[in-house]
């Protein structure tokens, strides 16, 4: 007998509202229906009433975590329209801010995934290590989030020369801690048993569904906008694109953990180059003077922590965009649940929907409806986490692990 289980529209683990209706036969999910748009804010329309220079402030509020990726893609879209290249120092500063953001986003996901699996120590560790990272971002940009660094033609401020040492120290610290976390994940038999083979999404499906970022790379679909459509300094930096083959939750976690090492490498390279350049001499090293924006169109893409962000702008020669399209990676990635969730159990469904790291949100309840009788079971969100943690516990006992 098929029953329907609604999850959402608010979910306490991650950040953005989504509603999933699971059609279940016993414990097994046979189909899923998804609804998004619960906090649709009309940012595209709003952006068309802001001047070119005001829009970065707006788009960095598309998402609290991706507050470097969205303005980065937007300024690249406008620079694509203008066909200009920004000064080298500005390019490195842009890359450093964006990669620091990637580190804190991946740490956040690992922590939440740990919590969901019943590894609350991982959750606490990640939060602890993320804190000095946010402090550095505050020292560099003035804010823990919403950095306001990006501007058409460059950046708004320099990274103070005396902060370089602090950033390097932080990177060394994060390298050791990330190493520890990665080994903890790779060596734990319970995590293997709990996440391997769960929510498999293979290369062919990734291509059909337009999956992006770690979701695609975990499934062997080798795409990364930083390498494929290099913007600013990325073309000259040395980094690897992490690709796994199985497409399950385990591989998605591994991709994120290993990407942290690459992000640290990228930031170190940028710091090296900035140190070679020495302290800033004048403002022209940060900002290219931009006059009018002529009629035309531009595309800006950047690999955000969750996948490729795309901004499209069209100008009609006025001081505001005539059309500004924002495509966040979760828009493509959430749709992949349609293919990856069916066939798995309810305890895994929450994990799989969270494994794409959707901006998917927070607060309360899971209801359960019997499709035939209309009988309604309301479970709390805590119950969903409990289900997932119980399953981990069960596996742990079976494996005889502590």
């Amino acid at each position, binding site marked *: 007998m098929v029953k329907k289980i609604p999850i959402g529209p608010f979910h306490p683990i991650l950040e953005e509202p989504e509603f999933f209706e699971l059609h279940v036969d016993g414990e097994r999910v046979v189909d899923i229906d998804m609804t*998004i748009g619960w906090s649709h804010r009309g940012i595209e329309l709003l952006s068309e009433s802001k001047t070119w220079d005001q829009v970065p402030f707006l788009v960095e509020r598309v998402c609290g975590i991706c507050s470097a990726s969205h303005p980065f893609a937007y300024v690249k879209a406008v620079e694509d329209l203008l*066909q200009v290249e920004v000064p080298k120092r500005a390019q490195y500063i842009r890359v450093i801010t964006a990669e620091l953001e990637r580190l804190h986003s991946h740490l956040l996901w690992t922590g939440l995934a740990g919590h969901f699996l019943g590894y609350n120590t991982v959750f606490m560790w990640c939060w602890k290590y993320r804190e000095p990272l946010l402090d550095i971002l505050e020292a560099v940009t003035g804010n823990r989030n919403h950095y306001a660094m990006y501007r058409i033609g460059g950046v708004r401020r320099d990274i103070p020369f005396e902060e370089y040492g602090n950033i390097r120290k932080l990177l060394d610290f994060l390298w050791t801690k990330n190493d520890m976390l990665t080994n903890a994940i790779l060596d734990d038999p319970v995590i293997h048993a709990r996440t391997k083979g769960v929510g498999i999404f293979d290369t062919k499906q990734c291509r059909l569904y*337009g999956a992006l970022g770690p979701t695609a790379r975990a499934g062997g679909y080798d795409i990364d906008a930083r390498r494929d*459509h290099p913007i600013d300094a990325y073309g000259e930096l040395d980094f690897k694109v992490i690709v796994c083959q199985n497409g399950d939750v385990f591989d998605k976690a591994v991709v994120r953990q290993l990407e942290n090492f690459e992000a640290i490498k990228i930031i170190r390279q940028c710091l090296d180059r900035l140190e070679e350049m020495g302290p800033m001499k004048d403002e022209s090293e940060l900002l290219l003077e931009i006059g009018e924006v002529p009629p035309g169109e531009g595309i800006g893409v950047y690999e955000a922590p969750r996948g490729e962000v795309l901004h499209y702008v069209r100008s009609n020669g006025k001081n505001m965009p005539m059309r500004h399209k924002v495509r966040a990676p979760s828009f493509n990635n959430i749709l992949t649940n349609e293919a990856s969730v069916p066939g798995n159990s309810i305890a895994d469904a929450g994990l799989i929907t969270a494994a794409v790291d959707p901006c998917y949100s927070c607060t309360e309840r899971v209801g359960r409806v019997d499709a035939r009788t209309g009988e309604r079971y309301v479970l709390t969100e805590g119950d969903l986490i409990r289900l997932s943690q119980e399953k981990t516990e069960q596996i742990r006992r079976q494996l005889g692990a502590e």
Partner: protein
Amino acid sequence: MERETVKKKLAERFGDKVRIAERSPKRVYVYADNDIWVDLASFVFNDLDARFDTGVGIDDRDGVEVMFFFPFDREKYYLTIKTFARKPKPELDSISPVIPGAKWIEREIYEMFEVNFRGHPDLRPVLRSDTRPADFYPHRREVKTGLESSRVKLDGQDRADEVAGRPPKGQNP
């Protein structure tokens, strides 16, 4: 696939039904008629092996311009295919049966611009709340103009009066 090869193959397959324009080394635009729209998208995705990215709608006086992005990642450029769905009833064939990843973006373009994608498996609005009026398409020009005028009306002194609870200018208390 290299740009020159792609351009050649598109010209061979569709002849003068498509117009190809290059704006920069990283951007290629292909303009197509409505009737070959799905064939073109399917050819680019399946035969030329491009990745599907997303779509955009832009409202114009006579219709809605719809474009889809197909990046060629190895060769580092974006191919954009464009068509124009004419008003008063903008309609296009859906590419979702060929590319399932286009389902949501087509639903969004339908919801924002009222472009009816024929053959879409499930053409419901994707973002709007249940309480929004069914015939409200927020990105349409007429709706935007309406919003503009209401903003202008509520600007400046009128707005200040309204906030302060004073009667508008020229009216006795």
